[in-house]
């Protein structure tokens, strides 16, 4: 994917709101949020539980749509796209990494990484080659045939990253990617994401609870009660 023109940010939120339920029971998960993320950024999103981080990630990832406001992805107004058009954006430009890995059980690492490529309609040998390449990038060459139950948590998350990577996305979205991992494994995963951002130029947006993890990012956004309350560069650690 080519980088968008400088005038068009990769991700642009304009007064994005998302509410659940109606009337008395209405919950405003996002209450009018505006920000822009350019190509090649590495953003960490922090904030207390229930502050709307995941809601924002789902909207960025075109899994969900704002109930009010505008979300432009590469200049495309996503709020106007139906489920299938958004699937197309996910397929060609977005990769997801989840806290719980979300790999398909009983399928090998290679098959899991191939999954998004199937929906791109690539022929089997091209898929296999791309999936191997992605697994190599995350340091899992030699584990292609293992299925998730035969891999450690850290390795499973690497498979998930390889899956997000395989389709050549512009953005990888990671919602608490280290939430299920111990400290050493967490730092390995962060170094991997950092390398992908630095070497491949992939934009990364990541939610985390932990300061040390957030420090791998270049920019920090903090959500509170559905509002964006802080947005600043991450200070270099001493």
């Amino acid at each position, binding site marked *: 994917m080519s980088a968008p023109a400088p005038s068009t940010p990769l991700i642009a939120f304009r007064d994005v709101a998302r509410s659940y339920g109606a009337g008395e029971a209405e919950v405003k998960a996002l209450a009018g949020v505006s920000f822009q993320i350019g190509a090649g950024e590495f953003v960490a999103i922090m904030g207390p539980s229930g502050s709307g981080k995941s809601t924002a990630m789902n909207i960025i990832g075109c*899994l969900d749509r704002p109930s009010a406001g505008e979300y432009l992805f590469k200049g495309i107004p996503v709020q106007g796209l139906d489920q*299938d058009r958004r*699937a197309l954006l*996910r397929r060609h430009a*977005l990769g997801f990494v989840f806290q719980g890995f*979300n790999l398909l059980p009983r399928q090998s690492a290679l098959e899991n990484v191939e*999954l*998004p490529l199937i*929906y791109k*309609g690539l022929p089997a040998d091209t898929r296999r080659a791309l999936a191997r390449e992605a697994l190599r990038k995350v340091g899992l060459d030699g584990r292609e045939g293992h299925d998730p139950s035969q891999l450690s948590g850290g390795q499973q998350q690497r498979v998930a990253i390889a899956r997000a990577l395989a389709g050549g996305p512009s953005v990888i979205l990671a919602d608490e990617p280290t939430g299920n991992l111990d400290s050493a494994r967490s730092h390995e995963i962060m170094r991997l994401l950092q390398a992908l951002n630095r070497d491949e130029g992939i934009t990364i947006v990541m939610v985390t609870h932990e300061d040390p993890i957030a420090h791998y990012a270049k920019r920090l956004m903090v959500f509170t009660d559905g509002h964006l309350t802080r947005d600043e560069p991450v200070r270099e650690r001493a």
Partner: protein
Amino acid sequence: MLWEAVRLAYTAIIRNKLRSFLTVLGVVIGVAAVIAMVTVGEGSSAQVKASVERLGTNVLVLRPGRARMGPPSAEPVPRFTLKDAAALAELSIVAQVAPQANGTYSLVAGNANSSAQVSGTTADYLKVQNWPLALGRAFEPGEEAAGASVCILGQTVRDKLFGSSDPLGESLRVRGLACEVIGVLSARGAGSFGQDQDEVVLIPVKTMHRRLQGDTNVGSISVALLKSVDSATGIRAVQALMRDRRDIEIGAADDFSVTDMKDFNNLLSGVNSVMAGLLSAVAAVSLLVGGIGIMNIMLVSVTERTREIGIRLAVGASGGQVLMQFLIEAIVLSVLGGAIGIGLGLALAWGGSIYLAVPFTPSAMVIALAFGFSAVVGVVFGFFPARRAARMDPIEALRHQ
């Protein structure tokens, strides 16, 4: 993508072998039943056709008594005699005539004994019936005229009484009457009603009258028309002659029946079309039941795999692609059931046709239809579960435990 979906469906089905098998059992049983019944049915109707065709095309069978069903008439109906047969043979449109006087008698040859239908008839019977001899010769005119004690055996009688030894020239006692075996009929197999046509002994009709039956009645007369004569003309001529000989007044009903063996064939194929209707009903019901089974298990499968569906949607699958995946799984499942059913049905038909002594004639058309119908069942009953999968919200699906 399509091949991918078939492969996926296959692995999903293999993963739950027992469940998959139980799911398609309805389709298996339905398809097997239909295949078995249709195949055996076709075998027996092919046999009926063959036996009617063997008769020669234009054969009329005359019997005393009214053709129509109903209360038996108060007055006894006059029997036929050999004179009737001789008069029929005089008609210019007739090729051959064979009177038949039948009875069932005990048979003894050496130490072996049995019983069978014994037909008193003439050598022309073999021509009318288009029934060649396997061994020996037919009655000679002299033997027929004299009422000689000679007989011709059907294959079943020969097997039962003489086994593999040569029966020609041997003596067969028909209810105490010693007859010389002069011929053996070729094997004919089961008749239109499944009876064994080879369980028969032929003797000259005069021998039958004098030595066994004790009267000169003739039970039926078979008339072979000349090839150039159509059966309607033949029937009219035969009826006119017999009405004259039996002094039936103009306007009064016949007191005898004339059956065209072709009509008999049509009657049987009418029976077959009723059978075909019943079969279609059986097929429809069993495929419906099988389809509901598939729909049920596909709904379970979609629910169980909610998270998988969420993952697929998240990585970029469109609703249509998810729909195809589950639809293809349902089709693969039901076509697999259809294939097992076809195999089972053919095996049953094979066993059944041996048991009923009819030819085993599997029809490619019926097999193709069974395949087609099971695929249609997969599409129809797989659609609703597949659509449910396709319409899932990816966020909800991913959150599903």
